[in-house]
């Protein structure tokens, strides 16, 4: 995987560019591409240019496996993606066999407990995220019971299971457990159900446009209790789509382009300028992952996949090493990442960060 | 006339068929004895084809009984009836357009040969090669034997349709206007062939036809339908002279 200084460093981006995951996948790809262009413009990594190739998984595990295989045939330095846990499960062992580190956007809890020491998360696991949500609901909202509205797909199911676990341990009662479909248009039934269970809060965990539609329907039906979300619900995209129906939505944001950090906001603006839409958290993950790889590689002083994987276990990257990693981030022995995260609330059409939650491990 | 064989091959008892309340067949009864050739004539829309469709299970009769060899077959599926040796032709062309003429004939016969298994593992032509060749020969379809049936002329398709009805070696055949569009000379052969089969195999025919020459020359007995009712029945000459028949059907 090393190679002479002449040839570029190859990064394989195996990601959801079509199928149900296309939206986040595209965000991820765009951010990664942007990061790499920036890096190359500044002279690359250790003086070598970086070259990224996209492999579309079509949000289909079988295809993702084929694409990882293809990527590996090209002998890349690292692999970025995929985001969907199913795809990761289908292809992670190939990367492991080839001993190539793989940075995934997948949040499913189990992934990092399968003893794969080449798998790294670019984002908090749902476990970690939900733990913070649980505290928030318990301490700040002081809810005794909540309704959980989740999208019944790869992404939502994992979150659903995680939050239920957390709620159980926090002793908060689940008033209603409502599964919704991705691409669902009419949330009347779900809001009715959530309302009639009269909980202290409603936890909404779904994709962007579905979240927006839910917020609108909730407003239409005049839901009074707080609508709590994790990351997506508070993203600028959802706010734009939902209009003023989004105001008052609150919750935890694992990564936010609106974080009160200059570097983050610079990133957001560049991205907006380049792609004429706002980055979502997937975009940030990818962007930060690429720079983390850069930072760690330069720290190592050599381009060596195996060494890189080793270095990331228990390793930390900081803006001091490379400003564009945006925030401190450290990976544990399982490959789980840990970062500061935020509590936010939507106030007249903008996401407002109300608190920064420190890393668990500090 | 027919030899007085006691049990009728086909017996229709008080058959009714109505569509949305409007009766197409209103209480038709008749018997056909072994070796008979019964002609059915009647004005357009008098219920002849509907009668056939009810006898053969294509349509479910509103009321009435149909028996073949004394066994009730009312509501029996056409394919089971066909396996009992009852076959038919349709008034409107009914061939398998994408299959060659020969394939059409093989298909027409294959379900009468062997078992499901032998049809899967047995010979491709189900041992009907000879039979189909003879049919092709007789109906002058030789030149088009390997053409797709859909590409045949109207008359040729009509003949193929008739040929198919005979592939299974049936005992009772119901023909719905076999003469329509068939060249007169071929028709003469057809008539002779029907008579021959009827004589040799003692097989029985019921023929719907508007071509009176053909009917008169072929049939041993004629049944006249009008508005779904039998208005006359008897030997060709009597029927031909029957004033009602002349009024309703033949014209002066």
């Amino acid at each position: 995987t090393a190679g002479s200084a002449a040839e570029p460093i190859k990064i394989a981006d195996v990601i959801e560019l079509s199928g149900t995951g296309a939206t986040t996948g595209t965000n991820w790809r765009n951010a990664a591409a942007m990061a790499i262009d920036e890096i190359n413009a500044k002279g690359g990594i250790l003086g070598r240019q970086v070259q990224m190739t996209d492999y579309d998984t079509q949000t289909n595990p079988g295809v993702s496996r084929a694409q990882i295989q293809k990527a590996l045939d090209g002998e890349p330095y690292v692999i970025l993606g995929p985001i969907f846990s199913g795809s990761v499960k289908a292809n992670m062992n190939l990367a492991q066999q080839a001993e190539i580190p793989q940075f995934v956007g997948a949040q499913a809890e189990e992934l990092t407990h399968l003893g794969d020491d080449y798998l790294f998360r670019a984002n908090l696991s749902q476990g970690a995220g939900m733990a913070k949500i649980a505290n928030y609901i318990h301490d700040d909202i002081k809810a005794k019971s909540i309704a959980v509205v989740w999208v019944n797909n790869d992404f939502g199911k994992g979150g659903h299971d995680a939050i239920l676990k957390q709620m159980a341990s926090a002793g908060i009662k689940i008033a209603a457990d409502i599964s919704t479909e991705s691409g669902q248009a009419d949330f009347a039934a779900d809001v009715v159900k959530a309302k009639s269970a009269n909980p202290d809060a409603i936890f909404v965990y779904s994709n962007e446009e579905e979240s927006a539609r839910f917020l609108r329907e909730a407003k239409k039906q005049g839901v009074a209790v707080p609508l709590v979300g994790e990351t997506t619900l508070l993203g600028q995209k959802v706010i734009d789509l939902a209009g003023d129906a989004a105001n008052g939505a609150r919750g935890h944001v694992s990564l936010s382009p609106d974080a009160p950090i200059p570097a983050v906001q610079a990133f957001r603006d560049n991205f907006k300028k380049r792609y004429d839409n706002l980055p979502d958290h997937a975009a940030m993950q990818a962007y930060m992952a690429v720079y983390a790889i850069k930072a760690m590689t330069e720290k190592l002083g050599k381009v060596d996949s195996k060494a890189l994987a080793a270095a990331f276990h228990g390793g930390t990257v900081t803006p001091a090493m490379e400003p564009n990693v945006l925030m401190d981030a450290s990976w544990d022995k399982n490959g789980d990442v840990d970062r500061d995260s935020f509590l936010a609330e939507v106030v007249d059409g903008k996401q407002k960060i109300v608190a920064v939650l420190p890393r668990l491990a500090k | 006339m027919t030899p007085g064989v006691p049990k009728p091959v086909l017996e229709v008892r008080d058959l009714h068929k109505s569509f949305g309340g409007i009766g197409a067949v209103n209480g038709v009864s008749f018997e056909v004895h072994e070796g008979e050739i019964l002609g059915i004539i009647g004005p357009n829309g008098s219920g002849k084809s509907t009668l056939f469709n009810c006898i053969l299970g294509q349509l479910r009769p509103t009321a009435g009984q149909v028996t073949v060899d004394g066994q009730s077959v009312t509501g029996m599926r056409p394919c089971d009836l066909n396996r009992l040796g009852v076959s038919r032709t349709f008034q409107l062309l009914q061939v398998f357009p994408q299959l060659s003429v020969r394939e059409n004939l093989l298909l027409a016969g294959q379900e009468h040969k062997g078992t499901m298994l032998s049809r899967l593992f047995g010979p491709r032509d189900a041992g009907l090669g000879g039979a189909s060749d003879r049919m092709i020969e007789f109906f002058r379809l030789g030149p088009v034997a390997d053409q797709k049936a859909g590409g045949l002329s109207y008359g040729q398709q009509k003949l193929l349709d008739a040929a198919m009805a005979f592939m299974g070696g049936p005992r009772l055949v119901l023909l719905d206007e076999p003469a329509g569009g068939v060249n007169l000379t071929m028709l003469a052969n057809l008539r002779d062939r029907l008579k021959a089969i009827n004589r040799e195999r003692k097989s029985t025919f019921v023929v719907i036809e508007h071509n009176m020459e053909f009917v008169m020359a072929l049939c041993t007995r004629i049944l006249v339908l009008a508005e779904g009712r039998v208005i006359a029945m008897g030997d060709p000459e009597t029927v031909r002279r029957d004033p009602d028949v002349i009024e309703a059907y033949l014209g002066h």
Partner: protein
Amino acid sequence: MTGLRRLLAIVLSLGAVAVLIAAPFDLKPYGVYILSLWAVTAIAVIGLNLMIGYAGQVSLAQGAFVGIGAYTTALLTTHGVPWIGALVASGGLSFAIGWLLGYPALRVQHHYLAFVTLAFNTLVGLIFRNEDWLTGGIGGISGIPRPSLLGWSTNPPRSFYLFCFAVLLLVALATWWLIRSPWGRAFVALRENPVRALSLGVDTRRYTLLAFALGSGLGGVAGALYAPLVQFIDPTPFGLGFSLNLLLMVIVGGSGFFLGPFVGTLVAVLLPEWLRFAQGYYLIIYAALVIILLAFCPTGLMGLFGRLTTALRPVPARPAAATLTETVP
């Protein structure tokens, strides 16, 4: 099929077989994987072609049957049942369910039937997703072992490909025999003129159900190979999209042609891969090409092949009949 055409077809197919056996030895693992995927998918498409191309029974549920086969195999083999057993179970189960799914076809045809099967496909998908206790739900089933037969492990990509290809060959030969037997003729009769067929003693009900069961059964067989190929399954791949894609392969290859499925699958599996150089545009180009292809040969690639070979054939003789000039017999 005329002698010339048959000869050409046979020569081509023998050549193809030889190439396909030799292929994996100078391909990277990825190429081998794609070839295996082709072989597996082709089996499902052969089944679908049997239903649509021959018996004229439109099914939009073939994807679901691949899924049923895949899940059955995954569940059994991960619980220690040998693959052969799983294969029989997968095929058998799909056959049985296919038989049941055939019943609607006795009442309705064409687009109505298509939508019954479409609904069925979605229902199966929902069961895969929601019945965690059985199917692992969205989490899916991972760690599916690849079979080893009489000590020969098919774990390495090449071996597994050859294994899939062998199964494909067997299926192909069986189908070839079937469609040329009187059964095949009866299937075509269903497609061409069920009313007439019925009056000729063809038990259309039995043959319809058989067509469904056999076609779906092959779907199951494909599934039994798909599971160990990917070694992980979840509900996503077996949705309506997959069924439509399988249908696409039948039509693009040429429905009602024996070789259609092989060609159609090749196009649908390989073309997107070849086009990946076009990065973000590859699916656009792929879709456009499919449309263009169908616009130029709606009867599919085999139909085109047929047209080309007929062009080589001599002009058919004008059908003769009795003539005035010839003396009367």
